[in-house]
């Protein structure tokens, strides 16, 4: 152990480099688009960026942050988003009140979370494979419910009321979805960084055996984690449907990589190198700025996907390559 001291020192500085590198990259990226991309710095664009591009992904990323902090991963976030969206839209289409739709949608998402929790706790399947299985099953469920994936559009005026009440209303001068995001962020922040639950989550993420031997009810906490994530995805599904006034099967899958990417960008820039709420939100912002900026300088959707993929890859390389060289 005699070589511990000098190594520890250099590790800290490398971590600091990684932290600043990601933040600096973000700043440079923003600056670059501000200069190069016409219309990037306009109020309209920035507002649109936050409301339409950030909110949905941010809420899913909050859920993913909880799961990754607990040492797991949730590949079924898309299923939770989609099923919530599907049940919500179907209930509205059947003439139920908006509130019934919302409750139904959230309930559907929670069922997905409970299923994940059952597979992980009850059948002892690891989180990756359990949620992968749910991803498959969720796909079938949607195809069966929609004759192979036919979208449900409710654009007629008679359906508009509940959707507009969610997506086009304001609270204290802010669009409702933004307010929902703020509330979700606050809740997850308190849960993860201030509460007993958050401590248990951190212990689970670092060493589940220690948590168990310290008297933590591991299955119960893991259930909270996966149901919590699914619930947040459920909120996203409802906001999504309310915004586009429709349900498009399998559209939730698009969140998966971005949410994982945002969470890991967040981990890379947090001082403790653990998933954090603030980090995840910054990560989401970074991805949104990137996508929006690339669009404004004329890259088409396909190239944006390449660009975002490369960006996430680089952040991961930086985060893991620089900081995790303990062994």
């Amino acid at each position: 152990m005699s070589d511990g001291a000098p190594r520890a020192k250099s590790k800290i500085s490398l971590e600091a480099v990684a932290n600043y590198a990601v933040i600096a990259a973000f700043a440079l990226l923003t600056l670059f688009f501000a200069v190069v991309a016409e219309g990037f710095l306009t109020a309209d664009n920035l507002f649109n960026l936050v409301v339409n591009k950030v909110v949905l992904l941010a809420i899913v990323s909050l859920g993913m942050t909880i799961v990754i902090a607990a040492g797991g991963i949730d590949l079924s976030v898309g299923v939770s988003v989609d099923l919530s969206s599907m049940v919500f839209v179907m209930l509205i289409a059947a003439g139920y009140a908006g509130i019934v739709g919302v409750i139904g949608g959230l309930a559907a998402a929670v069922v997905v979370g409970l299923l994940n929790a059952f597979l992980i706790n009850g059948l002892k399947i690891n989180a990756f494979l359990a949620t992968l299985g749910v991803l498959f099953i969720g796909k079938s469920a949607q195809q069966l419910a929609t004759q192979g994936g036919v979208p449900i559009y409710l654009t007629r005026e008679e359906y508009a009321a509940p959707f507009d009440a969610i997506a086009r209303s304001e609270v204290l001068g802010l669009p409702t979805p933004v307010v929902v995001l703020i509330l979700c962020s606050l809740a997850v922040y308190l849960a993860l960084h201030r509460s007993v639950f958050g401590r248990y989550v951190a212990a689970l993420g670092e060493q589940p055996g220690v948590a168990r031997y310290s008297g933590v009810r591991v299955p119960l906490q893991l259930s909270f984690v996966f149901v919590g994530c699914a619930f947040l995805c459920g909120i996203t599904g409802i906001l999504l449907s309310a915004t586009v006034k429709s349900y498009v099967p399998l559209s939730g899958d698009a969140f998966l990589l971005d949410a994982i990417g945002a969470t890991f960008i967040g981990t890379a820039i947090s001082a403790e190198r653990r998933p954090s709420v603030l980090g995840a939100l910054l990560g989401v912002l970074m991805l949104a700025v990137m996508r929006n900026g690339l669009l404004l300088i004329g890259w088409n959707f396909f190239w944006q996907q390449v660009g975002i993929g490369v960006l996430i890859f680089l952040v991961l390389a930086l985060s893991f390559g620089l900081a995790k060289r303990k062994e």
Partner: protein
Amino acid sequence: MTLESASAGKRPNAAAMTSVLVRLGAFGAFGVVMIYFALTARGFTSPYNLLNVVEQSAILGILAFAMTIVFIGTGTDVQKGGVDLSVAANAGLSAAVFAVLAEAGHSDAEAAFAAIATGMLVGLVNGLAVVVFKILPLLATLAVMNVAAGLELTLTENTVVGASTDLVEALAFGRFLEVSSLAWCLILVTLVLAVAVHHSRLGLRLYAVGGHREAARAAGINTGAYIIASYVFSGFCAGIASILIVSRLSASTPGTGLLLLPVLAAALLGMVFSRRFVPTIGGTLLAVLFIGFLVNGFQLLGISSYWVSGVQGALILLVVAATSLAKPSDGG
């Protein structure tokens, strides 16, 4: 002498019993499903249909072998060990490269070479990301998967790129001894890999690297090289598969990435067919055929194809739950 009493405690024996049961269960399930389809689905047992299933399983099989090799070299703890999520997207990208080059008038050899080189390059990126940058394989290959999918879209503009060259025709319509070229491809690849993986020093050492990396390193094996090689080989398989993909439809089409889930299902399912519950070439082949016959039987019975993905998901969960039951609990 205490050293003699192999597995003196009762636990290992109980575990051994369970593992035998699980394996019997796996073979039994395969058998029962086959018999059920044979009895209920008209035409299921006809040689034409059986060969047809083998032929249709060729692409899935070769990609599943790619995943199997990665599992062998990096362990089956997908979350912390290794996995190649980019393999299907990689095949899609390679297929696009092949089709675009063929359409532009390049020769078969050039197009095939470029497709395989593309696949291996993507594999190399995965390998370097995992070994040199030490990124969690799950995340590294997920990011690479997206880049590959994006590049495929930029190449093809999300459209069908037709390609009908001599090679494509030969693969699509050629037959030898009443067996189609695609089926032959699967048979040949299986044989070559079975020998390479199970009867060579390289294969044995690859298993050691995946089974216990520290132990392999202590034995003097360059583990990093083996892991990079397994990802590059996975890319190579994706390249080979891409040519078969183009051949089957005489074109490169979007959506190859969707093969990822069945590929994962097959590679994981294959583990239950092996004595040690490790990925094997034979086990993966059985799993691929199992999935192939399942889909085929569904079609013949007129069951909606929407069920397929759900059944595959349920199969994965079943298999993993069964193996986690059968494995001796760690710490012993």
